[in-house]
């Protein structure tokens, strides 16, 4: 059963179609990859999936039983719908500690009143202690527990990427959207990340959609690949299918 369905999705900016007529679906438990040249509309597509942009036409549906449609998307509601994301150009809370970054991910799963916040009543302590434990557990998984008190901006690039993923996981999503998770990583780091992504998919029972340029990563772990070009979905299928698709080779790999 698909976890997400996209119907005829289009987005135009001032007449220019950044994304046009996309139809696709991703099955629960899959890792799907989106590839395409720079500016092909991949990030715009992600922004449509996460409520940052509203579609010009068409719609996105999550959770086919509850039919959560893009009509009700708001960026801050997405974690509540079970969708969390990372960003292409890492958007951590730079001056906050690594731990606090992950705790923000827990935001939706916490609730105590204003009075508890101001007076630190028992409800505060209970809820914070629980969130703290969860956050530490996540940081342990990524090997970052000993850096929990450092400001996020002080971490090296590769670790910042991991903190961002940990933060997204803290929101307990069912669908995780990763926007170029390997950008700026060297081949070894990328290899490690590739393993990590497929491991967390199983561990957290996730569906993952990722945008990536690094072919080794995409071909290595994605069971399905969508190829974007010029705002259009020009091909989809298994890695082998896509690699042998004439149109894809032309558009993405530069052509002969």
């Amino acid at each position, binding site marked *: 059963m698909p976890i997400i369905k996209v119907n005829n999705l289009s987005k135009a900016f001032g007449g220019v179609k950044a994304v046009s007529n996309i139809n696709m679906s991703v099955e629960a438990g899959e890792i799907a990859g989106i590839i395409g040249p720079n*500016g092909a509309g991949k990030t715009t597509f992600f922004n449509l999936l996460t409520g940052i942009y509203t579609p010009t036409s068409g719609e996105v549906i999550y959770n086919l039983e509850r039919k959560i449609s893009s009509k009700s998307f708001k960026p801050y509601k997405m974690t509540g719908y079970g969708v969390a994301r990372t960003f292409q150009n890492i958007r951590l809370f730079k001056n906050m500690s690594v731990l606090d970054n992950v705790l923000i991910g827990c935001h939706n799963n916490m609730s105590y009143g204003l009075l508890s916040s101001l007076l630190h009543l028992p409800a505060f302590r209970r809820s914070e202690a629980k969130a703290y434990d969860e956050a530490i557990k996540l940081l342990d998984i990524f090997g970052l527990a000993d850096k929990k008190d450092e400001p996020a901006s002080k971490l090296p690039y590769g670790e910042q990427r991991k903190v961002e993923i940990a933060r997204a996981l803290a929101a307990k999503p069912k669908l995780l959207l990763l926007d170029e998770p390997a950008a700026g990583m060297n081949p070894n780091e990328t290899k490690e990340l590739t393993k990590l992504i497929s491991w967390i998919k199983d561990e957290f029972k996730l569906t993952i959609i990722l945008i990536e*340029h*690094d072919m080794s990563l995409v071909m290595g772990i994605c069971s399905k690949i969508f190829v974007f070009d010029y705002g259009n979905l020009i091909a989809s299928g298994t890695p082998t299918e896509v690699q042998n698709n004439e149109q894809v080779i032309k558009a993405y790999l530069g*052509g002969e």
Partner: protein
Amino acid sequence: MLELQNLNVFYGAIHALRDVSLKINEGEIVTLIGANGAGKTTTLRTISGIEKAQSGKLLYNGKELNSVSASEIVKLGICHVPEGRRVFSTMSVFENLEMGAYTRNDKVQIKKDMEHVFSLFPRLLERKNQMAGTLSGGEQQMLAIGRALLSKPKLLLLDEPSMGLAPLVVKEIFSIIKDINKDGTTILLVEQNANMALQCADRAYIIKNGEIDMEGNAQALLNDESVKNAYLGG
């Protein structure tokens, strides 16, 4: 013509370029390829004087450029076409081209060069009075290149000219780049589209995490297995 010797550039605490050395000979097309965030754009920004190197030397025809201001560097004949085109959106195509000739005062010659640019990019002539912001991506890229040409560069720095453009348009742009080179302009081309860039260039450098990882003949790198795997999509 241009030589970078052990250049180090920092953005605050981030060490963006580490001991980068590269050389460009007159008349060449040299390409610098690498992943997102590897330091390609920083290299160009340092050459054009927007970023300043903390250590190392930047030599242009034997003259040190380290402390020369960005506007002086343009006058010396280095022009940089920035990533994402960066045309002046609410100025007309014509005015954008005029800005390219900002450092020049020879009106007659500017007019001739303007005509030359229009002959290279006939579509710009059609849209001469249109606001640059209303052009398509490919047209904006042409405008950005045309604008740079009007500064009469001896060395042209191109940052990702293929970004966000349809394959056909990319082909067109690359063939024009070759033409510009044939007319006698040396070119340093930064690209993510490694395949396209290597086919067009004479020599290439590969940059990784702020360091030059490999260098050599473009054709040779195109056939190199490790390069193929890492940048050409296997």
